């Protein structure tokens, strides 16, 4: 039933037929030497390719038979194609043979040679040769990865040599700009790209870590050190006090809500970061914090390749915490106020010369491994990529582990000439162990236990209560942390998470230059967090977590789901070769919903039940069950229009406009508009620059735009009452207002939030000026950006004085903030010798100056909320610590009610605006600094010679103050120096040791009750050598014998060294944060909490950083 009239290509190439083009080309063979799908006669039948399944697997192998069903299907499809396609006339075809070569004459393999305006094409072979049948007046489009695409008119030539110029990535690489992409040279906003290569240079668990130090204006600060811990990402500073400052993340066109751990960094092909409002305005109400556009790997035309990327690494603690050894501990204790003397076992320890190193005893080697397999290929624009990954990381502490399994697939396919569809699915299951209550829990004992106490008793059993004082041994939860080494059904601490993220698109070419595209994203995530702590069965099976207590279990289940539907219209038109117009129109809706519930129960019938059936419980009393839950839903509806115009490729203009409506705002206040415009001028293309040879590129950009952030939570504009008493839910609950009248238990409600129908977004207006440059034939490229952004109508939860009668705080649109900054990026090829030695480097340096311009009602400071006009939002307000009162200052100290050896605070001011000789919390606390870096950046050096490559990655921050809660005595209890426990080895004052750092161990370190908080401030500057990476890529000849395309083996050391850090010198092991908000037992009160993700980054007790030695391989066959 096959129609007449088609001919075979005389050369092995893709089949095509006069008057029509394949409709389902993915059914066809992808290899150049495989012949068409549709046989003409029996002789040809022998050369017939296989069905669809064969397409992926077989190579150079012809199936003898074709399944009848496949034939039927194909015939059906052919008929369908006839119905769909319009007739087109073709010129006479000729066969063109040619070669694709590099500048230096070397062949380019796997270059795609396509006939313009069709889907017909072929690829070049190993020698760069290709052969194709093409209309004599046709145009060939030759493209290859890393090269500039070229178009060549055939002009009835039968042989063609094509030289492809290496793509200058800085100029012609395609940059994803949101709802589309642009050539880099056409970009007018502030966009920075991070390549796949850079993302891969440091082995990391997640994307945040991969991005740290990689792009100017992108600040990634660690907020934890467990495997899979997140990070705080800020693009060009902070704009919101109470709203989220996290950038919008868009994965393959669809906004990504939630956990970035769900993305396998190996699946990411590139990351583009939109920094200024002129480029983020297309995301309107979500654009203010910048946008991170993640593009995952796609298939591309060419042979099907199987590649493996993987590594395995072993790590050790990079730096243990410095604590006092036995002798130092004894000196401190003897000097302190501790009156209870030594424990009998400690006295034995002293006489035996014991010096127990608790950290050594518990720390183990950490491990990190990653394995990814990708299969990718495609032909004629019908491409696919699929793969799976497995990541596993453990730390130096027992019980901490992060595992991730990923499966993903991408298919892009053409249906005829006008329709393109694609599906992308990413599925992740992750398991995080130890993140809830295990993580970090042994650290306090490790540092505080007496080095005089034994770890094991004479029989070799773990010494059960090794504290150096009776109280700690008596108090609950004070067993030897070495019990953690063996989890004998003692605990389960697991978060298991499933995320499936799918996007589907369909693109319809309506007319030449006019395209309609529909994107649909569906996301679903389920998280199950289980906690179980078994009953203590000391001495047989002591439970570290439940000393002298029964068991307890908790299960939290939550799900979030959402969809995004986008309708887009694209229009592109070139008029008279000079006016290039591109327009984009959007209508979209996004909805997200979440729901969670949680059960906690104690007295589980038996430990082996764990949390699997909480009905199996024998309550001691009726109230051992705690339940909680919650729900939220939000939706956004948006319209957007964007026009790109360029004249002569020299003058560029972009205009955008977006209108967003949000469910989170009160009725009548839901819709807002976001305009932006930007322009570019390619100065180097001007005639007057033609003679300035060293300058290969000079482009000036300027833009302005307005954006906002979604700083209001669902239901927030409503006035709320709830049953929370504001207390911590402990093991028995206790966070719900309850009362009892005799035996009758009741619940209470109270007002927590005042209603505010006028709530609206925070609007940011940014002006950006950028200069891109290329020097010496673009051997040096870079850019310089200056921006000035101002955020108005800033929302914040005003902590009302409690006398207002509302216990909570009040969210309102007040205040203004500004961020100004400068960003500098430069990439250069420093050395490129004929022998093949190259040294190139990437360097970025930036600063952001954050300043609060206005708070409500002319208030210059809001101490309760740590907000100070004229200062950064990370300002630290406290007394100024001047060190320690020295012996020769006794008289002066006495005037302040102090004695030598106590903390010396600055008498900053007084009631008359002058120092008054009294330290007073009203007049002597002031903004003593902030946590912002004055300057930060990253640097990467890459060397290569023959097959070897070496790279070194550095990350640095200069300026700013860090808050070390492990050095705040009553936050951490590690530097109290009261003789009760061991702690960090700080240099304390004694009459014979005039330290100016820590006060003398004594009952009262100051006559000011909160002076202890001032001992936790240190310079935040550091330079870190993040990773050193040595690789070897096998040569072609070896590869041939291995039948492989490419093989690279490498060795990496991460956390190589802290090259500079004043804090590190002062017994801090790592100047990067370990958490957000106060992590202490006592809260110093001047640390912003993390209610909305804006907490101050602090250093508390957390899993120490590992230095990992990793072997890895990148193999493609």
């Amino acid at each position: 039933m096959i129609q007449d009239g088609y001919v075979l290509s005389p050369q092995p190439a893709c089949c095509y037929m006069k008057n029509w083009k394949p409709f389902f080309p993915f059914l066809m063979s992808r290899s150049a030497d495989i012949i068409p799908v549709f046989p003409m006669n029996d002789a040809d039948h022998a050369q017939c390719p296989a069905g669809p399944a064969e397409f992926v697997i077989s190579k150079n192998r012809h199936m003898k038979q074709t399944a009848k069903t496949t034939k039927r299907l194909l015939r059906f499809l052919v008929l369908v194609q006839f119905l769909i396609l319009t007739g087109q006339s073709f010129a006479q075809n000729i066969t063109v043979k040619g070669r694709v070569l590099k500048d230096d004459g070397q062949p380019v393999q796997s270059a795609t040679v396509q006939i313009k305006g069709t889907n017909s094409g072929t690829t070049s072979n190993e020698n760069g040769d290709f052969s194709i049948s093409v209309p004599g007046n046709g145009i060939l489009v030759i493209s290859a990865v890393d090269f500039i695409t070229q178009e060549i008119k055939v002009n009835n030539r039968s042989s063609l040599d094509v030289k492809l110029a290496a793509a200058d990535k800085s100029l012609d690489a395609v940059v994803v700009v949101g709802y589309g992409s642009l050539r880099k040279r056409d970009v007018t906003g502030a966009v920075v790209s991070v390549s796949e290569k850079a993302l891969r240079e440091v082995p990391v668990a997640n994307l945040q870590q991969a991005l740290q130090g990689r792009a100017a204006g992108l600040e990634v600060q660690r907020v934890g050190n467990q495997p899979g811990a997140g990070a705080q990402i800020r693009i060009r500073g902070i704009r919101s006090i109470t709203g989220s400052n996290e950038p919008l993340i868009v994965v393959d066109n669809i906004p990504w809500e939630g956990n970035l751990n769900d993305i396998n960094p190996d699946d990411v092909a590139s990351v583009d970061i939109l920094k200024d409002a002129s480029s983020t305005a297309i995301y309107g109400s979500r654009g203010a914090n910048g946008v991170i556009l993640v593009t995952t790997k796609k298939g591309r035309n060419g042979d099907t390749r199987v590649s493996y990327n993987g590594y395995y690494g072993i790590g050790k603690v990079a730096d243990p915490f410095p604590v006092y050894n036995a002798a130092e501990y004894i000196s401190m204790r003897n000097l302190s106020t501790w009156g209870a003397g030594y424990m009998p076992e400690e006295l034995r320890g002293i006489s035996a010369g014991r010096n127990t190193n608790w950290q050594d005893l518990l720390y183990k080697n950490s491990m990190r491994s990653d394995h990814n397999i990708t299969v990718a290929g495609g032909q004629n624009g019908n491409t696919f990529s699929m793969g799976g990954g497995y990541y596993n990381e453990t730390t130096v502490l027992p019980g901490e582990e992060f595992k991730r399994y990923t499966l993903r697939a991408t298919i892009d396919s053409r249906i005829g000439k006008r329709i393109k569809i694609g599906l992308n699915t990413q599925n992740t299951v992750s398991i995080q162990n130890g993140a809830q209550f295990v993580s970090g829990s042994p650290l306090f004992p490790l540092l505080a236990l007496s080095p005089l106490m034994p770890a094991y008793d004479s029989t070799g059993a773990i010494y059960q209560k090794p504290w150096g004082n009776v109280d700690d041994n008596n108090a609950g939860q004070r067993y030897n942390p070495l019990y953690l080494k063996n989890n004998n059904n003692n605990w389960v601490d697991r978060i298991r998470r499933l995320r499936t993220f799918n996007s589907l698109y369909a693109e319809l070419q309506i007319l030449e230059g006019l395209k309609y595209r529909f994107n649909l994203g569906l996301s679903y995530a389920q998280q199950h967090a289980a906690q179980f702590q078994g009953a203590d069965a000391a001495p047989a099976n002591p439970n570290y977590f439940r000393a002298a207590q029964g068991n307890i279990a908790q299960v939290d289940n939550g799900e979030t789901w959402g969809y995004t539907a986008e309708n887009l219209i694209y229009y592109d038109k070139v008029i008279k070769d000079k006016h290039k117009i591109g327009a984009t129109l959007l209508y979209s809706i996004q909805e997200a919903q979440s729901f969670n519930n949680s059960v906690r129960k104690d007295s589980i019938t038996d430990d082996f039940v764990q949390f699997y059936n909480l009905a199996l419980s024998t309550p001691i009393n009726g109230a051992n069950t705690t339940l909680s839950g919650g729900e939220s839903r939000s939706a956004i509806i948006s319209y957007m229009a964007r026009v790109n115009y360029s004249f002569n490729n020299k003058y560029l203009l972009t205009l955008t406009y977006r209108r967003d409506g949000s469910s989170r705002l009160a009725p009548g206040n839901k819709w807002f508009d976001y305009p932006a415009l930007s322009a570019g001028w390619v100065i180097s293309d001007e005639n007057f620059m033609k003679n300035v040879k060293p300058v290969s590129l000079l482009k000036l950009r300027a833009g302005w735009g307005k954006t906002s952030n979604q700083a209001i939570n669902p239901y927030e504009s409503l006035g709320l009452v709830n049953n929370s008493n504001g207390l911590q839910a402990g093991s028995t609950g206790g966070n719900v207002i309850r009362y009892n009248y005799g035996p009758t238990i009741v619940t209470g409600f109270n007002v927590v939030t005042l209603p505010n129908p006028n709530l609206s977004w925070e609007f940011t207006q940014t002006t950006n000026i950028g200069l891109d440059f290329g020097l010496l034939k673009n051997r040096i490229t870079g850019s310089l950006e200056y921006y000035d952004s101002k955020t108005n109508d800033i929302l914040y939860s005003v902590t009302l004085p409690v006398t207002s009668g509302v216990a909570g705080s009040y969210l309102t649109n007040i205040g203004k903030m500004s961020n100004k900054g400068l960003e500098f990026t430069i990439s250069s090829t420093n050395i490129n010798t004929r022998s093949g030695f190259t040294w190139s480097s990437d360097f970025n340096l930036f600063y952001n100056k954050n300043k609060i311009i206005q708070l409500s009602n002319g208030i210059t400071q809001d101490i309760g909320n740590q907000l100070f006009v004229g200062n950064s939002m990370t300002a630290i307000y406290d007394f100024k610590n001047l060190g320690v009162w020295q012996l020769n200052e006794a008289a002066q100290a006495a005037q302040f009610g102090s004695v030598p050896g106590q903390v010396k605070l600055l008498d900053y001011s007084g009631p008359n605006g002058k120092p008054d000789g009294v330290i007073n919390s009203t007049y002597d606390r002031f903004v003593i600094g902030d946590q912002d870096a004055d300057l930060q950046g990253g640097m990467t050096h890459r060397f290569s010679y023959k097959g070897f490559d070496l790279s070194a990655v550095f990350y640095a921050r200069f300026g700013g103050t860090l808050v070390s809660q492990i050095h705040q005595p009553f936050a951490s209890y590690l530097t109290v120096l009261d003789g009760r426990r061991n702690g960090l080895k700080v240099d304390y004052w004694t009459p014979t040791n005039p330290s100016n750092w820590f006060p003398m161990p004594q009952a009262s370190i100051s006559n000011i009750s909160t002076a202890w908080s001032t001992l936790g401030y240190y310079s935040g500057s550091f330079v870190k050598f993040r990773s050193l990476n040595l690789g070897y890529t096998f040569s072609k000849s070896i590869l041939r014998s291995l039948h492989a395309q490419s093989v690279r083996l490498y060795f990496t050391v991460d956390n190589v060294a802290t090259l500079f850090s004043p804090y590190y010198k002062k017994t801090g092991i790592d100047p990067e944060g370990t958490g957000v908000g106060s992590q202490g037992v006592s809260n110093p009160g001047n640390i912003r909490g993390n209610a909305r993700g804006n907490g101050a980054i602090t250093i508390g007790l957390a899993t120490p950083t590992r230095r990992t030695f990793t072997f890895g391989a990148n193999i493609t066959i």
Partner: protein
Amino acid sequence: MKNKLITILSVVVLTMLINGCSKKLEEKPYTVFSTEYFKTTAGFQSGINTLYSGFRFLYGPEGAVGLSTDGTDEYTYAEQPRNGAGGTQDYLTLGNYTLDAANGALLTPWNRSFNNINLANALIEYAPVVPISNEERTVALAQIRFLRALYYLNLVQYFGAVPLDLGTGDLKFNQSPFQGFNRLPVDQLLVKNYQAIIDDATFASQNLPDKRPAGAFRLSKAAAFHLLAKAYLHRGYSAASQASDFQSAYTAATQVINNQSLYGVALQSNYFDVFRAGNDYNSEMLYSVERIPGNFGSNEIGTPNSIGGGKGTDAHNDFCGDYTSVRAPLASSTAQPCRTRAIPYGRPIRRFCPTPYTIFTAFSDKFNDSRYEGTFRTVYKTTSAEGGFTTSMPSGTTYNVESYTADTAFIMALTNQIADSLNGILPAGPRLKPYRVIAPREFYFSGGSIDANITRNMYPSIRKFEDPANLDANNEATRPFPVFRLGETYLIAAEAAMKTGNTTEAMNLINVLKLRAAYRPNLSSAEVTNRYNAIRLTNPSLVTIDFILDERTREMCGECTRWPDLAVRKKLVERVQAYNTDAAPRIQSFHALRPIPRSQLDNTNDPDKAKYQNPGY
């Protein structure tokens, strides 16, 4: 043609989407409530529950105990704050009067009251529309107003004048984000404060039920009259005093005393029974803040073995000396037979210890007056078998030692004489007891005045709040915490009578308590009479304010009212200087008011914050 079709189709799809979607922008929360909830029957009642529950912050937790007890003539800080043990600085500075506005204990009353006062204002405003009967409404309003008055009384006794206008007008439900602080002018506001308290308490005394239920502390007229009497008495001593105040206080107090069966109240015959565990709902208790035994979640205690910071009772541990480190049978022994904590003895967190005044002056007669032994634990049984002491209590666990057989480990002797006699010192001879007998001169007192190694920080520990039914010795207590009891009603009536010049009536009222104090079970009535005669008052002229305060120590020691009792009566400085060596050097007259907490001033939207602060801070 086809293009047109596609275009039309697209337009249709788009239009459908747009129309269907605008509804998506409406919010329909499932899990959150608005203030409208308080207009429903259930919501209204839940608001009242919240008001009752709020007092859990103010009666029992460590902050409340410290604020009301530390730095008085009766009590000073014990070993832990003295040695700067973690988290106890607030009690050191409260006790030696170096406290500043950042002291955390101040936040217990300050931060936990105004939201409940505002809720009370809301409930009073919403009450008319709540669908309940008028009788129910009146009783509900009486409870709300009682509770609001009590919140204010607490605040005023510590801080002086406090805002009645939270942002929307006096005693109005405030829903505006008010950042001001309506405290000025302080003298006028104090007048309004007391008037509001008295108005509320008066309304409550007229409209509450006569009696409370036998097994619960729902509010009743007896509690309301007590509150009213106390309010009048406090005002009588204040700058806002009115001539009739003491008479009014007397009238209100005697309303209860003279109509005990009407109000369902009566003194316990045995002083020890007033606070005996298991007898929490006895007839003497007019109002206690309730907690339910063993149920930590319902007591709003998330972590049972935590200390302070929430709504759990710490009082049973705060007064607890370090019995675990007491050596026996001799001070020089190595054995510590109470090494393991025991549930009735509590967790020895040794925050507060009595002054010599309490042990030697107020309780100078520990024999005839049963209240010393009714107040302090004197006998400790072995919890850890060592040094020859035996116990059937399993080792290493913090069980209720009373339910096991155990040797006596040590006693806290009533007098040095008794101790010397039992220890064979005077008269010289063999020791008469196999256990340790600790003489009062060995007690740990203020200033660490004796060798800590002898008694290891042990002093007489208040037994009134012991919780033998608790699950662990380290836990917070789960017993109701008494707020008003009839014993104090007598004292208020006596004091009011004295202030109106009727010292005979005052003496008679006090003697009622003396008679009860003489009583011990198993004594013959003649013996009780003998003892009563030894301690009774016979000369009305001896009834002075100092006598009343001494008697309050004997009757109410440890009941967490001492600091305000002294401060309100303007006796704080004088008596602290006389009796408390830790506090005497620093205390000044301005200390009779606590500082307005720093966080309040930090959050107040006014650069001139000093004008709101109490003088001296």
